[in-house]
């Protein structure tokens, strides 16, 4: 049981591995940095999480949005924050596992400490509900006869799809969408045949307007256990993303430990779990600090290999 999804399972893990004691407590109001604009799924989870932490730490937690560059702007500024635990980040791994590969950024994985992971990502392949294919295999079959089009969101899912298209002999046109909101009109309007979903499927799959064909992630989604991952289908590609607590580089161990324990508290705290699972449709995934950092490096290596050519 390496990564734990769903809260009930997380609870068992807590019993199995009891929290280490920590003596650190904040002495003044805290600031939670979010690298995305107000209103997005990271922001919604973060704001509810801030209230959970207020309960846990007994200090007010202010939320500061620093949007830009998929979290890169916030990470750049956060690197120089005071490592006293009063400023921390509810961060998205993509800023560390992906941005440094394609752009010049001033930070590296080693510039931060990682206290815990709380939320997992859900990258999927979607098609319109009334498309002539209902599974990824059928899509490939169909694509061998017909020219296909795909709406991308990140250069990584584009790279994966290009390789699959090459391998399977598809004639694939890949169009940019410039963000999550742009995919739905293209797919529902029939402009593209299939598309990347960073989470919008949660909204359209229940209505039957869209159909999940596969997941990019390493493990299957707990919400859709029947939908295979690309790895299950035999393609050696994966794209993962997790969200958790990041701290500035020089933060002492006891503070990191305190945040790890806070994360243990949060993944059991009803409002946070409810908002994350039911409202933003992201799975709760708890990992401790060491595992978070190891996973981060693992994903980074995989992404580097993927983007190498």
């Amino acid at each position: 049981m390496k990564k734990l999804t769903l809260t009930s399972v997380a609870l068992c893990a807590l019993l199995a591995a009891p929290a280490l004691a920590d003596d650190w407590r904040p002495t003044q109001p805290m600031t939670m940095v979010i690298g995305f604009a107000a209103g997005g799924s990271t922001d919604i989870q973060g704001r509810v999480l801030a209230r959970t932490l207020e309960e846990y730490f007994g200090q007010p937690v202010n939320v500061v949005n620093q949007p830009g560059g998929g979290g890169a702007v916030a990470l750049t500024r956060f690197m120089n924050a005071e490592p006293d635990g009063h400023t921390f980040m509810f961060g998205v791994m993509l800023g560390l596992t992906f941005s440094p590969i394609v752009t010049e950024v001033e930070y590296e994985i080693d510039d931060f400490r990682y206290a815990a992971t709380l939320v997992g990502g859900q990258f999927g392949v979607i098609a319109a509900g009334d498309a002539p294919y209902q599974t990824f295999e059928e899509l490939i079959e169909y694509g061998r006869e017909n020219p296909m089009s795909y709406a991308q969101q990140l250069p990584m899912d584009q790279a994966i799809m290009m390789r699959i298209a090459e391998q399977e002999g598809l004639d694939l046109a890949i169009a940019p969408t410039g963000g999550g909101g742009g995919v739905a009109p293209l797919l529902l309007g029939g402009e593209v045949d299939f598309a990347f979903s960073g989470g919008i499927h949660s909204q359209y799959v229940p209505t039957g307007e869209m159909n999940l064909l596969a997941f990019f992630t390493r493990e299957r989604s707990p919400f859709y256990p029947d939908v295979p991952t690309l790895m299950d289908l035999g393609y050696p590609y994966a794209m993962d993303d997790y969200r958790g607590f990041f701290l500035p580089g020089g933060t002492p161990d006891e503070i990191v430990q305190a945040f790890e324990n806070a994360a243990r508290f949060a993944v059991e705290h009803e409002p946070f779990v409810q908002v994350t699972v039911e409202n933003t449709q992201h799975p709760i995934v708890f990992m401790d600090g060491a595992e978070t950092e190891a996973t981060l490096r693992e994903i980074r290596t995989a992404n580097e290999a993927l983007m190498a050519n």
Partner: protein
Amino acid sequence: MDFSAVGAAAAEALTLASFIGIGGGVLLGYIVGVIPGLSRSVAISIAIPMTFYMSPFIAISFLIGLSKGTAAGSAVSAILLNAPGEASSAATALDGYPMAKKGKPKTALQIGLIASVLGDILATIILIFVAIPFARVALLFGPYEMAAILAFALVFIAGLSGGSIFKGLAAGGLGIFLGTIGLDNQTGLPRLTFGYTELMDGMPLIAVAIGTLALSEMFVQSEKLRYDRENMSVALKKDSSDRITWPIFRNILPTILRGTGVGTFVGALPGLGPSVGSFMSYGMAQKAAKDPETFGKGNPKGIAASESADNAVIPAALIPLFGLGIPGNVSAALLIGAFAIHGITVGPLLLRDNPELLYSIFAGMILASVIMLALGWFGLMFFAQITRVPPHVVIPIVIFFCLAGMMLQGYGTFGLIILMAFALLGYLMKKYDYSFVTFLVAFIITPMLELNLRQSIILSRGNVAILLDRPIALFFIACTALALITLIIRTFRTGKPAANAPAD
């Protein structure tokens, strides 16, 4: 329509708690909108933590009231200070400020308010009765159509720029160039960012808009203080003729209706946003008028056109949101977040699973419009007093709010530097008569146009014949060509556009 649900909805909309929630939202939005430097996104970030404590219906109505309030409030500073709080109210300032200077500030404010409220209510009614069943029509507008519409908007609005047409086009060129800064939307590689992480998402629109619209205007006015201290403030006399009259209203009503139509159309198409709507509407009013040369000199139709479209966009942006689950613009996208906090998924299912909530929200929206009218009408008496405050007192306070507003957005020192650079640019453009309106519109439209053009080229695989199946796109391409040809002919005949909107 299920009438018992409608009745229950109306009943919920008319409770005291909803009055307080919606009224509070409108009031808060109005105040934030009035203060230049604080924009709609500040209002929304204030609102999000507040909505945690509200019921879903009140939370949503509160947020919609807030959006409506900022749209109406930003007209006040546009008219009285020539410093629009939002890019979408920049068109309002073109005629509102001259009209206020001519001694009719109250009339100008009243026209702005009535146009706002009417545009708002009519668009809400369209949303309720017509749009949701027909929301799918928006899906007919794929990348080809969007690219054609955006190109048309760009050329059409460029043709509005006053003064020298070449200066207008040069300003547009600068807007296009600066609008392309940021990550390439396909490869994610940086483009023209010069190695700065902060530029990866492009020049922040808020900094550009506040800089060129509000802060630069304060520099222009502080310079004028040296020469013209006595005549600077808009005189507010006890002038009984300074109010909206029936003939004025009758005169502007067709303009309001047209503005509402334009605003609803623009709002219903995902991605275009209120600035495109208000400028398109302003341009169409000018083209349709018998006296286009009076635009920019205090023509009431200019205010009515811009404000009605600006406000109509807000409910219209909910058409694709409620009909298809696609947010029409940034504010609508934030509403998805607010719904999510309350465990509601926005989209077509809302009508099926939760009709009471949807009807309550509609009732709340109408209520918000009525509250806005009442609040605005009384607020007008109060806000018109701003004109009594001499400009040398207004200038430092507005500058302070511009700086503070940038800090509240979380862009840090970088945002302040961008703000300052664009304030300087805006000052120079106003001083040397380069149209900052063309600049701003080009800056806003270029990224969307490029993305849609790219999608079209890739998805058509370079096959132009695909356009033959796209009558809507062909229509707008024809419009663009026509607008372009008229622009060129006018340029070579006189070197001046026919329409005479001044650059400031």
